[in-house]
């Protein structure tokens, strides 16, 4: 049996009266990259927020390394080894790049090795070393995304939650970021839960994928099989078959509905 680093069981999370997650379950095996795909407003961000403790689920459980962590404070969750790279980067704009990185290591209990990790992070993101003493607010969007990932790395996390790292980046930069994510997973052994709208990229680097719609998981499979699936092709990869055109179009509803 594969060991799950994270398992989420039937979580239901609300924004006031709005039910954003309607019983979501998913597993993230140790050492793997797992992706959650979904359109705007599907609830992807809410899943990550519920895992990292920023939001509390009303029902269901989140298990990390055999401990139930649902409903815990986010700073406690971070200290357990979960690093959240939030949607839209969220760097500290007036702190320097170096200070931002040092904040990533805030929750670490052992302070040794931080210097070595800084070197490691600069190895992956040379641009950050160049800009180390510049205010983070003056970095470009792509550089801020790199900083957000690098900052999370400084925590030496066992699980990294990545919320749409490709958002607003040029195709070349998207590829670069995803290459680095893949390398971090391979070389540093960081397990990843990756939330994306860029299904094509996400399915290429992840091992297993879930499809989320309106707060429910509607499909899940190994990524190579999802890449083959007609539904995914049509609705998430934008590939249309000639056969399904015109009058027959109405039949081609998503099979899970």
């Amino acid at each position, binding site marked *: 049996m594969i060991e799950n680093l994270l398992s989420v069981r039937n979580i239901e999370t609300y924004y006031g009266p709005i039910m954003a997650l309607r019983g979501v379950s998913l597993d993230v095996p140790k050492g793997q990259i797992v992706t959650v795909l979904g359109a705007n407003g599907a609830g992807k961000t809410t899943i990550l927020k519920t895992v990292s403790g920023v939001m509390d689920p009303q029902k269901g459980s989140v298990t990390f390394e055999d401990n139930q962590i649902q409903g815990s404070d986010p700073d406690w969750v*971070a200290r357990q080894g979960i690093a*959240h790279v939030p949607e839209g980067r*969220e760097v500290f704009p007036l702190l320097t790049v170096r200070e931002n990185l040092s904040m990533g290591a*805030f929750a670490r209990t052992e302070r040794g090795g931080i210097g070595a990790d800084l070197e490691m992070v600069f190895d992956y993101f040379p641009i950050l070393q160049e800009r180390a003493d510049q205010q983070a607010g003056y970095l470009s969007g792509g550089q801020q995304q790199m900083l957000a990932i690098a900052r999370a790395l400084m925590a030496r996390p066992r699980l990294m939650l990545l919320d749409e790292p490709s958002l607003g980046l040029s195709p070349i930069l998207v590829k670069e970021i995803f290459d680095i994510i893949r390398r971090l997973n391979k070389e540093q052994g960081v397990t990843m839960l990756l939330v994306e709208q860029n299904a094509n990229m996400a399915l290429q680097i992840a091992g297993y994928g879930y499809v989320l719609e309106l707060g429910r998981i509607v499909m899940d499979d190994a990524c190579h099989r999802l890449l083959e699936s007609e539904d995914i092709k049509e609705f998430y990869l934008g590939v249309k078959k000639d056969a399904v055109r015109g009058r027959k179009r109405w039949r081609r509803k998503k099979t899970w509905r």
Partner: protein
Amino acid sequence: MIQIVVAGVAQGCVYGMIALGFVLIYKATEQVNFAQGDIMMLGMFTAFTLIATGGLSWWLGIVLAIAVTGAFGFFLDKLMLRQIIGQPQFAVVILTIALGFIFRSVAGGVWGADPVSFTTPYGRTIVTLNESETGNTVIDVSDLVIILGTIILVAVMYAFFRFTRIGIAMQAASQNQLAACYMGIPVKYIFSLIWGISAAVSCVAGILLAPKIATFDPDVGFLAITAFAAAVIGGFGSLPGALLGGLIIGVTEQLAQAYLPGDFARAVAPVSGFVILLVVLLVRPDGLFAQTQRKKV
């Protein structure tokens, strides 16, 4: 002239330090603590109790008073302000105003309404700088101590926020609360710490002010209203701005006092800070040191 400026700068330093207290809390939590002046007052009376009543040496007395006031600010936030988080902004405003009233009346009950004082090693010594035909330039040592104290305080705070892990974390939490949360920074605790620092800074201001004004009573905290104007002049989000705003008001008050004719001076000097406030608000509505900074959550 020199003596007027020195007195003004000293008064301005006091305003500036209280303004720092306002801005520290505002920057981090977007709350305005209208009890700031009354916390300063409590700090002054704590020092009075320790030094005048308790007979401690001045040094020991002020260190303890600053520590006690800091702890008071920390727990005030932890036990009261953090508890009403999520309530509308005006709830916090009303709460801090109410706390100010309570502190004043409690102080009146405990220490009475009569003016008190405590002795300092330097007292109200006066140095005569030079003797010329036009008269002597005399400078109050308590003014010099205020200025020196402010410089030290600002240097310590600068180093703290710039170079210590917890100080940088305070900046981080002020700039982006949510991201700080994600980093595992205990944001609530950090905010309580900032309240503690703010209270301690006010206490320093009060302790340095005490010998300058000779005696004080529970209403001494109303001084903070002028300091509030100083913070607004400085942009209400900028620490250097707060200090500068304080200095501008302090010096103006003294100049108005000295150079305006008799009765007029007595009437106008105390409000000259607000006149400046109006002018600044008309010319630069965001204050002198406005920081355009996106703030999340």
